[in-house]
């Protein structure tokens, strides 16, 4: 068998690396796609408005991301079922449908935000949104629908490389690392509506519902087995940490430039533009370039995550290696989400801001039940067998869920007052 002969050829160290590369993917891709345009925008605003002060929010978000992505990946591998299917099985048809419905709605909104990111970044390079958005929609559909699983995954990795742009931009901005470290470890919070909103948004964009649904389904589609769990954990930790680090660099860049000069911004493209006079044209271009890459990655993952969830709810096949004929529902969902969002962004006069705000609130509200369902599944002995969560982990899950719940309550309270 393959491994046998490999052993004769490869040193144990190389073999370990090869084994890791084969497992790598779910954590990396699900994590990094959380740094989407909405995420970059949120981090930019966080940095521009509050400097280094709220960096700790990102640190906690990253820890929460690690913990729950790890759980999601494990549930996927152990049960071989996606999140929505498990919710249907364990909590009933209505809970499953309600979760899937909210997820679809939120995903269409988020997908629209990704296209908005592409449109804005395209405009920075002088490209009309009527060209950049359809182009991106076609590109993403072609990538995911016309390629094998292995190839799609490799292209995802390739796109992810653009995130280095943010790290370079961060160094170019010449931040005050001492203040950054203090902001990251000392939690202080101005108790204003704006600050709580941005802190909650940071939580919601890092720990996105579609990301949680995605990692579970993707681990199933990748056909990872229980033996891969150790390596998968390395993948999830690396991916989530990288996600957090990139976020921190975005905050630091904006803190060192925009915040220092008292410039207020609304989105990531604003940030890129405002960077130009402060950190140079290259910094602006790096920022915009990173934005396009981030948007493309997320725009590939979002419809995919939705397609997995819908197939999962109805118990129909969902795999990237299936043909259109084998898994029609899977591919139709993918196309519908992509098409609908592209149209939404291109309709002149569409209430984009309202859609985006509504999406953010919906994502935040949806996050809470999903985390609770995941918690419930994690302690279900029948489903998880020997991988059932330990008492210690349950406490940690509980703490994170409580933090998310408090943040959401504060946000809702401010929203409706």
């Amino acid at each position, binding site marked *: 068998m393959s491994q*046998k002969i490999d052993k004769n050829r490869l040193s144990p160290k190389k073999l370990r690396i090869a084994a890791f590369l084969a497992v790598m993917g779910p954590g990396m891709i699900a994590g990094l796609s959380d740094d989407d345009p909405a995420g970059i925008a949120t981090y930019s605003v966080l940095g521009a408005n509050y400097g280094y002060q709220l960096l700790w929010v990102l640190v906690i978000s990253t820890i929460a991301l690690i913990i729950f992505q790890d759980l999601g990946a494990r549930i996927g591998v152990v049960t071989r*079922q996606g999140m929505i299917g498990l919710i249907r099985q364990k909590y009933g048809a209505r809970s499953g449908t309600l979760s899937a419905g909210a997820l679809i709605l939120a995903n269409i909104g988020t997908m629209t935000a990704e296209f908005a990111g592409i449109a804005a970044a395209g405009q920075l390079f002088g490209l009309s949104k009527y060209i950049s958005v359809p182009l991106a929609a076609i590109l993403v559909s072609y990538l995911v629908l016309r390629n094998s699983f*292995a190839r799609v995954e490799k292209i995802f990795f390739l796109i992810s490389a653009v995130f280095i742009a943010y790290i370079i931009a961060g160094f170019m901005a010449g931040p005050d690392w001492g203040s950054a470290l203090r902001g990251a470890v000392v939690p202080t919070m101005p108790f204003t509506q704006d600050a709580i909103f941005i802190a909650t948004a940071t939580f919601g964009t890092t720990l996105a519902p579609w990301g949680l649904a995605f990692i579970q389904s993707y681990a199933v589609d990748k056909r990872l087995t229980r033996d891969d769990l150790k390596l998968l954990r390395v993948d999830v930790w690396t991916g989530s940490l990288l996600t957090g680090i990139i976020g921190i660099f975005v905050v630091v860049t904006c803190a060192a430039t925009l915040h220092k000069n008292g410039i207020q911004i609304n989105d990531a493209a604003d940030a890129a533009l405002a960077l130009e006079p402060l950190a140079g044209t290259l910094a602006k271009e790096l920022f915009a370039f990173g934005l396009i890459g981030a948007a493309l990655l997320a725009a590939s993952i979002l419809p995919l995550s939705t397609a997995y969830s819908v197939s999962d709810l109805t118990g129909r096949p969902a795999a990237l290696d299936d043909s259109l004929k084998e898994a029609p529902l899977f591919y139709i969902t993918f196309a519908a989400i992509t098409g609908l969002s592209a149209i939404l962004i291109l309709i002149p006069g569409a209430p984009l801001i309202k859609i985006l705000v509504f999406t953010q609130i919906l994502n935040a509200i949806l996050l809470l039940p999903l985390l609770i369902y995941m918690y419930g599944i994690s302690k279900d002995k029948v489903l998880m067998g020997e991988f059932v969560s330990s008492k210690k982990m349950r406490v940690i899950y509980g703490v994170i869920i409580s933090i998310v719940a408090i943040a959401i309550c504060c946000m809702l309270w401010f929203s409706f007052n």
Partner: protein
Amino acid sequence: MKKPPKTSINTVAKRLVGRSDLALARKSIRESLVSVAGLIGKPVKYQGGNEIGRLIDVVVKHGIDSYPPVSGLIVKVGHSKSFIDGARISKLTQNEIQLSTSKVDLTEFERRDGESLLDADVLDHQIVDVNGLRVVRTSDLYLAPLDREIRVVGVDISFKAFVRRIFPGVLGRGPIPEHVIDWANVASLAFGTGVVRSTQSRSALGQLRPADLADLIEDLAGRERSALIEMLHPDLAADALEEMEDDALQGLLRGLPSEQSAGLIARMEPDEGAEVLRDLNDDHRESIFQEMENSVAKQLRKLVEFDETLAGGIMTTHILTTHEEDTVASALKLLVENKDRDISDGIVVVDAKGRLLDHIQIIELVAAKSSAKLSTLVGPPFPTSVGINDRLDEVIKEFANNRGSSIMVVDEKNKPVGRILADDLVDALASTSESSGFAQGSGALQ
């Protein structure tokens, strides 16, 4: 490993659907279907019409019957879940259940072996659709009176049935007959655990090709996966395992108890079994050997020792050895006794010291006089043979020169120890090219 003749999916489906012994083929049953999803929450009443409580779940017993009978009801009485024996049901309609008595002893519900709860264990859970060769989710289940009992006769996996369950109230809780699949054409994985299983679903699964079963097994995990394997005839399960991807199979064996793994591996072709065992870690392999019959374990231990780039590592040890002084009749008898083994296309003849003389095809035996001694049949063309420690490329060279479908493997003393069939060679070559990265990915990155 030889595959059974390929039956196309369509023929299997036609055969199953067209079977007149299916419950749903009877009009009376088709017309009296009661939806389980629609029944949950409906009142359960005494003979006089007084309500006892609301239905929470339906308990069925899965034993030797093709269509599992209802063995009881779980009813919410006040705040407790009470069990009512299925024998007391006098009338079951879509809107209510009536008992034949005016008083029952309400007992707290307790799970018993061989029983499943239709709402909690089967509805919305994964189920194997034998015709569609896929794992789907149950949208609804249907009960109907059959053979003096109320039984599960049908299952609905359609999206429509699922959607109508989500909406509250009366939105068409009745069955949609054209979507109902006969219970005999599915295998509920909730029914797999425990020793008893439905013979019908077993035979339905039994009509699948091992390769399709392997795909189904790979699609499942944990309890469902073990359930499916338990429901298969062990020989078929072993065949399916042979068809699985190496990694998936390794993972599967790690999840099974050693006793079950031992039973399955012992039923595999020895060379395939050895290949599987070779990749397990020492402790696991040893624990599986402990559960095996001594003779089987001994044979497999020997095979596991061989390097799989050598002839001994890819050969099968299933050979029928006869002495040159034996008669044709006894050789034929031996073949008949071993007819279940795939490789009985001939016999190996050895001399008094056990050294290889010839491999005689079955056709030669049939043509010869039954009282003749085998030595009279020994003659050219003699079988090609390779040494047990010959390398793979030498085996290929011998195969290419000789153009036969198999070659013999002998030890240092020229005693036959096994045979390499063409498909063993193909397997060995396939795994060599896989490791050089030529194989196409089937999902995971290679």
